[in-house]
């Protein structure tokens, strides 16, 4: 990393988790059917205004999921894929697991927002295991979502805690799916995955393309609007 770039990165304020979730929420068109992966993506639902009709799906057979209930109004049989209590909006429906994954694999959802360890410039995603010798690998519904949903967006920190880029030329962690990611939201930028690799759609205030490149493990292109 050259020094100027490093200074630029150091000076800008990365987005918080909440800001990242809000940014994703802002970009979801009204009327879309959306699945939110467990972890950070689940927060996205909190930032879609209630009067805007985005229909959330949860792998465990809930379509039309609403926000967390008030403590006195919890339905103890109604959870999301992250095993948190949720509500059902008017117009919501329940289905069994095979039907629920039929919705996923059959390409009926417009969007899935997933967390990830790494995303490669060819759209590959690694989000379920950090090693081939994982002590207890757990895949859940990630692979089904990644291949089945029409569009996959990833929400993740730009770098690991030790400073490595999570955006890479090729994934080094075990893959979840090949070439499926269309967009990445990080704490520093929003990037589209194009045939030419990562194209920067937006950056946090004060950041430059050069500075972003200095903390990114794959070549960046300026977005053509």
């Amino acid at each position, binding site marked *: 990393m050259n020094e100027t770039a490093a200074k630029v990165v150091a000076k800008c304020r990365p987005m918080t988790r909440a800001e990242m979730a809000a940014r994703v929420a802002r970009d979801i068109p009204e009327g879309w059917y959306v699945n939110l992966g467990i972890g950070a993506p689940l927060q996205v639902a909190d930032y879609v205004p209630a009067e*805007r009709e985005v*229909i959330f799906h949860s792998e465990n057979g809930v379509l*039309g999921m609403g926000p967390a209930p008030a403590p006195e109004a919890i339905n103890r049989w109604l959870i999301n894929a992250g095993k948190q209590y949720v509500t059902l909006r008017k*117009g919501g429906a329940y289905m069994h697991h095979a039907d629920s994954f039929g*919705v996923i694999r*059959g390409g009926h959802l417009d969007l899935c927002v997933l967390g990830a360890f790494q995303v490669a410039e060819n759209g590959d995603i690694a989000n379920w295991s950090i090693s081939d010798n994982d002590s207890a690998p757990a895949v859940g519904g990630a692979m089904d979502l990644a291949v089945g949903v029409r569009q996959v967006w990833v929400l993740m920190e730009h770098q690991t805690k030790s400073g490595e880029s999570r955006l890479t030329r090729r994934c080094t962690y075990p893959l979840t799916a090949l070439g499926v990611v269309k967009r990445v939201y990080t704490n520093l930028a929003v990037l589209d995955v194009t045939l030419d690799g990562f194209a920067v759609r937006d950056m946090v205030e004060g950041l430059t393309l050069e500075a972003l490149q200095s903390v990114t493990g794959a070549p960046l292109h300026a977005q053509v609007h």
Partner: protein
Amino acid sequence: MLWVPAFAGTSGPTNLRMINKIVQTMAEAMAGIRDGAVVLVGGFGSIGQPNALIDGLIEHGAKGLTIVSNNAGVGRIGLARLLELGRVRKIICSYPRSVDPVVFEELYRAGKIELEIVPQGTLAERLRAAGAGIPAFFTATAVGTKLAARKEQREIGGRHYLLEEALAGDVALIEAWEADRWGNLTYRSSARNFNPVMAMAATLTIAQAQHIVDLGALDPEKIATPGIHVSRVLHVPYGEPIVT
């Protein structure tokens, strides 16, 4: 076309940009159906059959169609009329016979329509597979029969099976009992039949419903087709079906 502006007069919209799949006219319901489309038509005989939408399709005028339906029409109305008008290139069904299959049989004998006979369970499963993102599956049905011709056969666990491919539609015509503006559907008694699997198997799913209800009025445990599988709903309160 998942999202369309709400129309005044439908179940209590307060937000003009909310999801509203209910259309007001047959022309809107049929908009965009192209010549050559694969059209899935719900129903088992005349029960659960979307007769109004079939008439709408006749009016719409699309031709060169492939029709997927359990039956091939009765008499000279509805599906039979669509065939008689020469709009159908091919029919995929399990049981083209009926009390009065005159139109189909005339066209078939004259070589004017292609017929693909599919066992009823295989037909239902091929549609469900298309809806569920399963491109192909094995089944024991039709092994050793002439319907196995040119199909891949495989022994699994000591039994023989045929490979069958998913059957997707460009359009599905569905008959429902109740519907809401998100496109959630219920059916009545045995009128459910092929409708739920066809609804999930098509790109553009159009449902006619006897009753339009407010969002939230349908029991979420009882919705047989969730709205995600439905593109448009037309209110057609025609009353009681007649068995033909």
